[in-house]
């Protein structure tokens, strides 16, 4: 199941959603949240387990349900604190497992993600679209060349490398500041 998640298998994502989302929604609605927030929290939890399954270090010592519940509970407590909506949690009698460490890793990933995104947004066009097409959407060089109006794939390639140099500079400048 987790392998399916790591390879972004739609049916696995759907199965996990189906099995666990109603529980999380009930929990958040019971605790001063609305269903938009429930969806946000649940999606973030999905990303946490996705990252964990990709890293290959995911050894589950409890039910997946318990793990998801624990992550969402932690995330929601944190969100409540940020929003300054205090109050005691109304909970079902669910057991929880410690997830603090995993969430720290997730936050680090999140920070990296944001640094990359800001770097991408700063390099300007056509660099941004070019790198996005190649590295994020994984198009091949031929397609890109015709889409961006380069005379041939080699020209597009040279341009792509130039862009990459700029991205690298911006990325590491940010990255070193943040760490």
């Amino acid at each position, binding site marked *: 199941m987790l392998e399916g998640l790591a390879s972004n298998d739609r049916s696995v*994502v*759907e199965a996990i*959603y189906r099995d666990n989302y*109603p529980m999380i929604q009930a929990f958040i609605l019971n605790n001063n949240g*609305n269903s938009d927030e429930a969806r946000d929290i649940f999606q973030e939890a999905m*990303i946490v387990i996705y990252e964990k399954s990709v890293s290959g270090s995911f050894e589950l010592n409890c039910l997946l349900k318990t793990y998801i519940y624990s992550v969402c509970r932690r995330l929601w407590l944190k969100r409540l604190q940020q929003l300054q*909506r205090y109050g005691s949690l109304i909970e079902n009698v669910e057991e929880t497992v410690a997830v603090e460490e995993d969430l720290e890793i997730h936050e680090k990933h999140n920070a990296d993600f944001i640094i*990359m995104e800001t770097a991408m947004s700063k390099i300007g066009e056509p660099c941004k679209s070019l790198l996005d097409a190649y590295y*994020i959407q994984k198009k091949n060089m031929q397609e890109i060349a015709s889409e961006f109006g380069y005379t041939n794939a080699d020209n597009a390639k040279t341009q792509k490398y130039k862009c990459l140099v700029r991205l*690298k500079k911006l990325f590491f400048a940010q990255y070193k500041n943040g760490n």
Partner: protein
Amino acid sequence: MDELLLIETVERYLRGEMDVKERGFFEEIRKNNPEIDQMVVEHTFLFNELDKQANIKAFKHSLYEVENKLAEEGVVTKAELTTKAKVVFLWKKYKRSIAVAASIAGIVSIVTAASVSSYNNTSKAEKSDIIDLTAKVNEQEKDLANLKNTLRHDAGVISRNPNPDFRATGFLIDGKGYIATNAHVVAKLKTIYVENKKGEYFTAVTVFTDPVSDLAILKINDTSFKAVANLPYSIHKGSSDLGEQIFTMGFPRNEIVYGEGYLSAKSGNEGDSTAYQVSVSVNPGNSGGPVLNKNGEVIGIITSKNSKADGVVYAAKSKNIYSLLEAVKKSGDTANIKLPTNTSLRGLDRVQQVKKMEEFVFMVVGN
């Protein structure tokens, strides 16, 4: 070594595209040259980050799609149902301060009422300043259309270029061929044609109009039109917030044009509550174009702009489409229009969003 060349080499090295000999040679260089080694390490890191970025984005996209699917089945509920609990909670929390605020507001409003009303009268835009955004098609364009027509005819394509007098925009609200546009657009037209971005013409008829909110619904009655199973955008039922980023597409010229801006007021001209004021650059021809938020939900339809003020554009609220259909249903009409309620554009970047939806935005022409 030239930096570009080096990056290329590193990329090939990391992807395992080098043969054994080249690989050995490159590793030798790495060992003997700490500067190059450092670069390889940095690039490996950068590529990894880019890869992660790509994967997370793809994963988020499938999350959104799954969520949409489940929302359709009712497993995931939408926000409207649950906001009550939050309001109660806030009410309890702020009961006292609200009471105080209300009494102060009461006094202030009595004092200021007189002066405000006189000011209001002067600030209203003159009716004549509000222009609708239907474009007159000029002679040159007509000639061009005729030329296209002949060319198409020569190529053996059957064409029904109507040699139009007016041009506006519309978009599909039901894949069966129902198009939303403005009432003032169709009021001017006796025969109506719609053209998609591929240049295919279809004949259409007006089925419903609501002059108050300036909405009209057309139906393509052309046999050559193929029904669309799923529209990528949804029609938003709720209201939108000030400052929301919006974008629109329309036909101020013979080609589809994209524009973006923000929602600047929750009412239209003279406090018209059926419309929004948006700030986006539009021109005659944009009338009837969809206004979408960042999630790809249609929140309004471009109707008119104030010719004397800068960047003041009005858009009919999308919930008017729902109320129009409701009214039609009550009057006993049997047209079965099902508005799309889920967007598959969430989480995509703008270029992708536009690409996915532009074929459902039509040029509305006629004479």
